[in-house]
């Protein structure tokens, strides 16, 4: 008798655990807060400000999803992850989504059983060297000592790049970006390589940014985007379309300032109306209400606003839009239609 009760409890607990992992949306709603994985700190992309509030380009994606799902952009628990812990955190369910300049690769998408919900930053790997070295091209780096964050795609690209070009190098493996910068500034390595956006972000924090140059070569494609676990398509849709909503909002000229106005008085652009929920039932199709996108845009602004406030040319990071411009302006940003 006792045994069967025990087994029954065990079986029930097992079933409950299995069921719980399936519907992330229900979990998030029940918990009332979104667990979002971010970096341990990259200026402009994700970093706590002086008040301990997380700010940044990747953070905005988390806030937008929280606003769309929970109606509150502050209902996010930020979980800092390193390059090493990020995938385990996501796979184990510790976080609901990961927005942490993570490169979309084939094996991460398939073998690691994750789903990339889109691309929020088109990046490429670059090299930063002290200007005093007089190096103007990555092809002159034969024999150099290179600081590199371990466990990243940049590490693999670096090995491939030097191998293909018949050059040798001495890798100095480093755990975090901050440590790499410290080693680079002390001259313990000649070159620091990572995504060009991160190079620019970290150089902006140097005492003398002009003493370092970022070499012109871009040696890889680094499409960075948020990702979720495999197997929960509803949640995948929500994160994907929240990101698309931010991109589409910029395309249609919806900003955090005029979004309420446009929603209160529907205009004659049906796509904007569907996006803002004044027409059609798009929100209901993925288990949300119809104001989901309106809340997301009101909370963080459209893609262009997020870009310019966090990493754009007016900020210390000073990145130009480049590939990250709308497709209408020669960039790669392109949201599928809201219909």
């Amino acid at each position, binding site marked *: 008798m006792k045994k069967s009760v025990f087994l029954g409890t*065990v079986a029930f607990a*097992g079933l409950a*655990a*299995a069921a719980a*992992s399936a519907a992330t949306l229900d979990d998030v709603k029940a918990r009332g807060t979104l667990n979002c994985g971010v970096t341990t700190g990259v200026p402009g992309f994700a970093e706590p400000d002086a008040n301990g509030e997380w700010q940044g380009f990747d953070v905005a994606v988390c806030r937008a999803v929280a606003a769309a799902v929970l109606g509150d952009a502050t209902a996010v628990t930020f979980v800092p992850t390193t*390059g*090493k812990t990020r*995938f*385990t955190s996501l*796979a184990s369910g510790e976080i609901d989504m990961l927005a942490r300049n993570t490169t979309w690769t084939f*094996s*991460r998408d398939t*073998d*690691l*059983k994750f789903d990339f919900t889109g691309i929020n930053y088109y990046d490429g790997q670059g090299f930063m060297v002290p200007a*005093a*070295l007089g190096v103007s091209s990555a092809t002159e*780096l*034969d*024999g*150099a*000592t290179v600081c590199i964050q*371990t*466990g*990243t795609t940049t*590490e*693999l690209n*670096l*090995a*491939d790049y030097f*191998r293909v070009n018949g050059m040798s*190098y*001495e*890798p*100095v*493996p*480093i*755990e975090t970006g901050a440590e790499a910068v*410290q*080693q680079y500034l*002390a*001259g*313990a*390595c*000649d070159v620091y390589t990572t995504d060009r956006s991160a190079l620019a972000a970290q150089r902006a924090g140097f005492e003398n940014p002009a003493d370092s140059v970022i070499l012109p070569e871009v040696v890889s494609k680094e499409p960075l985007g948020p990702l979720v*676990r*495999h*197997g929960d398509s509803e949640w995948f849709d929500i994160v994907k379309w929240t990101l698309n909503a931010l991109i589409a909002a910029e395309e249609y000229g919806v900003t955090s300032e005029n979004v309420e106005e446009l929603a209160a008085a529907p205009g004659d652009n049906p796509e904007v109306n569907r996006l803002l929920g004044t027409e059609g039932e798009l929100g209901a199709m993925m288990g949300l209400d119809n104001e989901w996108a309106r809340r997301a845009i009101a909370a963080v602004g459209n893609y262009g606003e997020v870009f310019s406030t966090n990493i754009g040319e007016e900020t210390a990071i000073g990145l130009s839009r480049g590939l990250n411009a709308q497709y209408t302006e020669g960039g790669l940003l392109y949201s599928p239609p809201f219909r």
Partner: protein
Amino acid sequence: MTIMTDPPRDDGFRLGKLISDTRYRSITFQVITLVLLVLGIGYLISNLLANLADLGQDLSYDFLAAPSGYDINQQPIPYDSQSTHLRATIVGALNTLIVAFLACVTATVLGVIAGVLRLSKNWIISKLMAVYVEAFRNIPVLIWIIIIFTVVANVFPQPRDFRGEEATASPLFGVIAATNRGVYVPRPYFTNGFGLTDEEALSQGATDADAFELAATQGALLDWLVILAVLAGSFFAARAILNWANRTQEATGKRPATFWPTLAVWIVPITLVCWFMGLSWEVPELRGFNFQGGILMRGSLIALWLALSIYTGAFIAENVRAGILAISKGQTEAAAALGLRPRRIMNLVVLPQALRVIIPPLISQYLNITKNSSLAIAVGYMDLTATLGGITLNQTGRAIESILLLMLFYLTISLLISFFMNIYNNSVRLKER
């Protein structure tokens, strides 16, 4: 209390006896517990596998055969980014063993010296050692590793400071370059060794640079094996001289002088062999971004090695001190009464007996060094935790498999160290007859 009045009836075995009979009861409960334990563990494992399957993941070690794609800077065996993850794992394991071995040796030397000196009658020396022991024992080893690494990176000059007319740094003795990337020292090699020359390699069908390099590598390995064999020969010869001296002393009461013969046995053969094989030194030179040639002792290795040595050395010093204090003062006084000088008393009377107390905790310290070497990742030393538990884990996403392998490796190494040190412990332990 029950008093047995009749011998138990031997009426054969009944199932009920498993509970009622005290002869069987304890075994019954143990068996039941064991079965429940096995079932419990089995349930946990099946639960893990089922949950992994739900996540679409499975346990598979296939990734070990796939190309790793990353480079490792310290390679005890040939390795490049096209080698497999398994080879990267082995490189990492060897690097772990290298730093653990180096640190065990220096920590022991440091610990014995500091432990003995802490008992010195000289006030300054004993207090200095007390400060060393207390400071290092009570600050976490990770902090020492980082401090030494930061000092190395910021105090020593960059390679480019050695360049040009107005160089601000110059190599030590003209051959040893201490930079913030590590210390470059000259590398010995043999011009007339057993390695194949290019012509010989060519005649054996070698066609490309890789084959030449392979031939040269194998030749160099052979050269070093010869050196090792000569040194081993010298060791046995020196021991034979010592035995001969002991026998002569026992037979005649006079001990022949062994210093010069022993010195000759150590020095003459190795000099002859080196001269015959044409020993030369490859001096590091500044070419391009870095020094080229020579042997590079990386800053990360130095930091890890030094930190582990002085940290664990402080613990060993306390073990040694405890061991010495455990020897009765009467032993020292008796030895002194025989006319032995203090150094000989320490070496011949006190330390041999103290070893019985020192060895068992020393085993734990060796285990600690080996396990603490996994802090290597803090300074980017590519040990096993950095290759298998770091990059491989990260690139393949095979966390459970990698961690299981890591656990297996450290467990095996720890048990092996324990095993061999216990054999040694048995050999020095007090023999009771």
